[in-house]
């Protein structure tokens, strides 16, 4: 650390410290924070139910998006022109459209397509009512994943491209089957740069899940928002509760990231 020699740096540092201390002091002196109410809300059944929804939706979406991201990235990097352009189109659309728009579209999908299904054109069809399939958590997972896959695929693609060309050549020269070249040689090396970037992306996903409130799914934020309208005087402690939970969850993700990074740095010069 460089020593603070210049007077201007001293003054600025002092200023920042004073401001921070002032704000810190208000946390205790300003009664409107209502800290006394925080403990009862933080583990209240309603908040915990919301927390569970946030966790489930984020976790499933994170896994689905990672797998989907690999598929889309591989399609994008393939030599097949149809797969290439379809994956490009997908990424273009879902990276461009705001998540909340995707969610509300899905929410109203029932009125756009009352049933969804698949079948041979003019042949037998298999279909189910849209509302039955896309309800609650499913809608949340599908909506978040649709958007997240687009971002994940870009991260995976960059990771795959970062693997040295010599690795592809060595795998080919050994006559490794195509799938093994990818799964054993290229992907594990790509993961070293993919995983940190992707875990960072999961933080965004976790926070993005708060938008599910707008499609009537009561996640952590949704519950807090609901309680806030029922007990308007408690809105500040309720927001504090949500903040604390999001801080905790993000910290856990960062911790996981640390261990995963350590795992993938195996074999890298120390």
């Amino acid at each position, binding site marked *: 650390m460089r020593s603070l020699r210049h007077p201007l740096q001293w003054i600025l540092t002092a200023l920042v410290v004073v401001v921070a201390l002032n704000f810190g002091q208000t946390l205790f002196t300003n009664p409107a924070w209502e800290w006394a109410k925080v403990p009862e809300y933080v583990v209240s059944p309603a908040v915990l139910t919301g927390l569970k929804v946030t966790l489930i939706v984020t976790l499933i979406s994170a896994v689905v998006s990672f797998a989907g991201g690999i598929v889309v990235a591989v399609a994008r990097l393939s030599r097949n022109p149809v797969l290439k352009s379809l994956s490009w189109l997908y990424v273009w659309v879902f990276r461009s459209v705001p998540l909340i728009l995707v969610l509300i579209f899905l929410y109203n999908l029932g009125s756009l397509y009352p049933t969804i299904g698949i079948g041979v054109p003019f042949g037998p069809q298999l279909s189910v009512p849209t509302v039955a399939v896309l309800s609650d958590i499913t809608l949340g997972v599908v909506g978040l994943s649709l958007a997240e896959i687009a971002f994940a695929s870009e991260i995976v693609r960059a990771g795959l491209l970062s693997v*040295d060309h*010599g*690795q592809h*050549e*060595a*795998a*080919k*020269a*050994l*006559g*490794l*089957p*195509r799938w*093994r070249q990818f799964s*054993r*040689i290229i992907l*594990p*090396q790509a993961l*070293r740069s993919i995983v940190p970037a992707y875990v960072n992306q999961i933080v965004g996903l976790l926070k993005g899940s708060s938008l599910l409130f707008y499609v009537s799914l009561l996640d952590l934020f949704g519950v807090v928002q609901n309680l806030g309208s029922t007990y308007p005087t408690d809105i500040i402690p309720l927001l504090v509760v949500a903040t604390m939970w999001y801080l905790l969850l993000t910290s856990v993700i960062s911790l996981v990231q640390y261990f995963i990074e350590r795992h*993938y740095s*195996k*074999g*890298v*010069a*120390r």
Partner: protein
Amino acid sequence: MSTALATITGGAVSIRHATKSFGSKAVLNGIDLDVPAGSVTAIIGPSGSGKSTLLRTINHLERLDEGYVTVGDQLIGVKVHGERFTELPERAILRQRSRIGFVFQGFHLFPHLTALENVVEAPVAHRRPLAEAREVAQRLLERVGLGDRGDAYPAELSGGQKQRVAIARALALDPALILFDEPTSALDPELVSDVLEVIRALAGSGTTLVIVTHEISFAREIADQVVFIDDGRIIEQGSPAQVLDHPSHPRTQDFLRRVL
């Protein structure tokens, strides 16, 4: 000529009228070369002469525009289709490569696998039992003088050790032919001799060796045949004594004067 899915037998190499351009730049201008099974051939020449490209066509890492390569009794990478050659399906090409070892200038060990895992990878991919593959790999590591470094990751090895692991990796499928692309050019001078020692031990073992190299004295010592290439053409070829000690072509003479 046997079908593409049969395994290559014998390590003789024949190259006929090998021709290739990168864009408008011709790199190989109709090369004919025969390498007898079990022999050692050293390819020398100035950088950019096409010697590495020629080597890479032998295991079909590069496609030829014209001409063809055979190893043992098989056409490499292509099959005859009426009057023309068509490329083999990828699986058949990979199968052919499994009988042709390749050692790169830059090693290209798999950095996330240990030395032993690097050597085991190809045999396991080709359905050898893991226990047997590990045993063979351990023996190969001992053969290149690294029997005690099986658990080391490539980053923990010196350049010379890496290249020796790479040679063990190339040997793991018991190839009929091994191609070396400037195997010592990326090494610090004091590490070169260990690698050359390993290659020297392979000469005369029955495996065909084709070595692109700048090590003229090494070529003189172990090669049965030396080939001097310039501008994508074979300028001169013959025994080391002929090509290296009594070169007849002015370009060979000029090249040797500069590198010796």
